[in-house]
């Protein structure tokens, strides 16, 4: 299990009236796996992502990233993960190079322009935009910059929070290609999403959260979109 990119052990975190949050979630995502965490609004997907990031502390249980406990060994754990938020705004007045360079310095490393350019080019980032302030970037472009940060960081685990929301079809297709590329490179990807369309095509496993509980954790090949839709729909209408 130490080879797992991400491991959650009986993770519980509640809010307010203790009716909301995540309850007793246990999952293990092996290295080089793309895992889709599905669920409707308020199912607890973002809470679980925030717990993986160490932004929230679990009431019970533990989370390990590449074998490092995020609660007790946060520095090592965080050096091995890349977080792609739903809305990746970045520093609007800095360009892609400056943003990536700043965040990588927080990781204790100075990166060369070549390295940054290389990472951005592999994500098909328009070269002309690289030196322009991020404030003018589209959502897809900002997302690519954040993913490029993870590439430059050599992160083993990518946490993508609702990555496809607000993307046009072309950008969504490009995102799928990027996720596949990350898997091919042996990186672990956890995608939190409420969109089940084509999810089985590019993920290895699917987990479904319902009211904070992981009700399904199965290989994508064993599920079809309709089954997932049924599970998600029943959760949504519950």
């Amino acid at each position, binding site marked *: 299990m130490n080879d797992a990119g991400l491991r959650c052990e009986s993770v519980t975190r509640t809010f307010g009236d203790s009716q909301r949050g995540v309850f007793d979630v246990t999952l293990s995502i092996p290295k080089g796996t793309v895992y889709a965490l599905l669920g409707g609004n308020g199912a607890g997907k973002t809470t679980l992502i*925030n717990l993986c990031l160490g932004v929230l502390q679990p009431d019970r249980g533990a989370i390990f990233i590449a074998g490092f406990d995020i609660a007790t060994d946060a520095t090592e754990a*965080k050096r091995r993960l890349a977080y792609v938020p739903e809305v990746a705004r970045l520093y609007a007045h800095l360009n892609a190079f400056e943003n990536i360079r700043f*965040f990588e310095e*927080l990781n204790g490393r100075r990166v060369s322009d070549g*390295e940054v350019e290389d990472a951005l080019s592999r994500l098909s980032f328009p070269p002309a935009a690289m030196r322009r302030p991020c404030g003018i970037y589209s959502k897809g472009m900002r997302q690519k910059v954040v993913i490029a940060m993870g590439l430059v960081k*050599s992160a083993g685990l990518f946490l993508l929070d609702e990555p496809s929301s607000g993307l046009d079809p072309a950008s969504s297709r490009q995102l799928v290609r990027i996720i596949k*590329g990350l898997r091919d490179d042996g990186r672990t990807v956890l995608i939190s999403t409420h969109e089940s369309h084509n999810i089985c095509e590019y993920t290895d496993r699917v987990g479904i959260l319902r009211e904070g509980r992981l009700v399904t954790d199965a290989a994508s090949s064993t599920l079809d979109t309709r089954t997932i839709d049924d599970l998600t729909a029943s959760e949504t209408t519950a």
Partner: protein
Amino acid sequence: MSERTPLPERRQAGGPAVTQAHVFSTIVRKEILDHARGRRFVLGAVMTLALFVLASIVRVSDFRQAHQERNLFLQRWLPSVMEQLERDEIVQVENTRAVSPLSILTVGLEPVVPFRFTSTKEGLRFGQSRSAQNPVDALFGYLDVTFIVSTLLSLLTIAFTFDSLCGERADGTLALMLSYPVERRTIVAAKIAGNMIVTTLCFFPAFAAVAMIAAITGVGTMAPWHWLAYAAIALLYLLGFTAIGVAVSSRGGRSADSALTSLFIWVVIVFVTPRAVALVVNYAHPPIRGVEIALREDEAVSHLRLDYTRRLDSAFRLYMGSDASSRQDDFNKARREAIDELRTRRREVLARMWDEQMIDEQAREEWLRALSLLSPAAVFQQVAAELSWTGDEQRRHFLREARTYDERIGRHLAESRDLFFSAAHGQDGAHALVVHDDVKPFLIPFQPTWALSGVILRSALMPASMLMVFAVFAIAAASWFIERLDVRA
């Protein structure tokens, strides 16, 4: 990647160890660069420079005017005293003090400390203080560097910091930052340090301009360490506001809410608390009224002078009724004894009254100092005034010096003439005797000095420590808030 090009060879995850010191310096650097590119910094730096220069020009002109007044007065001093002596008038020896050259930094108590004082036979009398004589002072109420630091620069630090963290939270960059090996406390410390460096970059060029103006205009940059200590205290004061801005910003919420909260705290610290402190002290310990002191002095001294006059009168009667060849010596001896006794007893009585007055003033000052500790702005103004030789220490120093001068010199001059007159003896009408003392050795005008730097340092130590406590408290609050901040936008 879309073209299926091979990804770069993956490095070993982790890489070189990340220290929080490195993270700290990275965020500080970014903070400074962000400000350097922004309008707020440029506007703040230009505004600070312009106001410091304006304040310096106003204060230099005021200082030179006071200096000129004193020089003119000193030129007239000796002839004026000589004229009085020659005309056998009752000698009233007026003197004037000097204005501190460092009042260019802080006007402090200058407007309330008497500019002139007079030695009379009845005792020491303090005159009026110098009042504002230029339109800028009339508008701002004594514009000086300390006023600008305590109000405008503190507001500027708030403007720099109010959205330093809540802005990042709203932009989502704080959450992104925390997905890196960065501790929250490091972010707060770096934000405070970065903004403090930016504030320092606004302050120092302007402060250097003040020193240059002082040097160029001939006011002189006396006591360089006072200037340095002043700069250190000003930055310590501003550190507190920087930390307050970051602390408020660490609470999250919208930038507009953060701005309003910070502004409210600033108003309370800079305007409300100092005035509330002054009100409470005035209520609990009203200042002693000058007229009351003068009346008490007059009453005590007039009793002594009555005794003295009786003794002189009896000596003069003996002198007039005696034909002995030694009558002049006997009279001189009796007069000398009476004067000596008057001086001794008056010194004792006045010393006792002055001591009482000093104790009373000190008690009031202690109240003021103690309650001022609640107000960082009042504390800063106190320390700034002390370092500029316009504070309580210098005021006490001047009062002591004036009294010493009055005892040693002024009194001799004031009592150097006595006219004795009798119409009761002899058939050839009234007899008068004028006694002239030799006062030439005492003809020295008042030469003021400055309170010792060691004394000022000691008196500034406690308020400076309180500013340190204020800054530490604000930093601790910022750390406390960031640890509890929900970073999700």
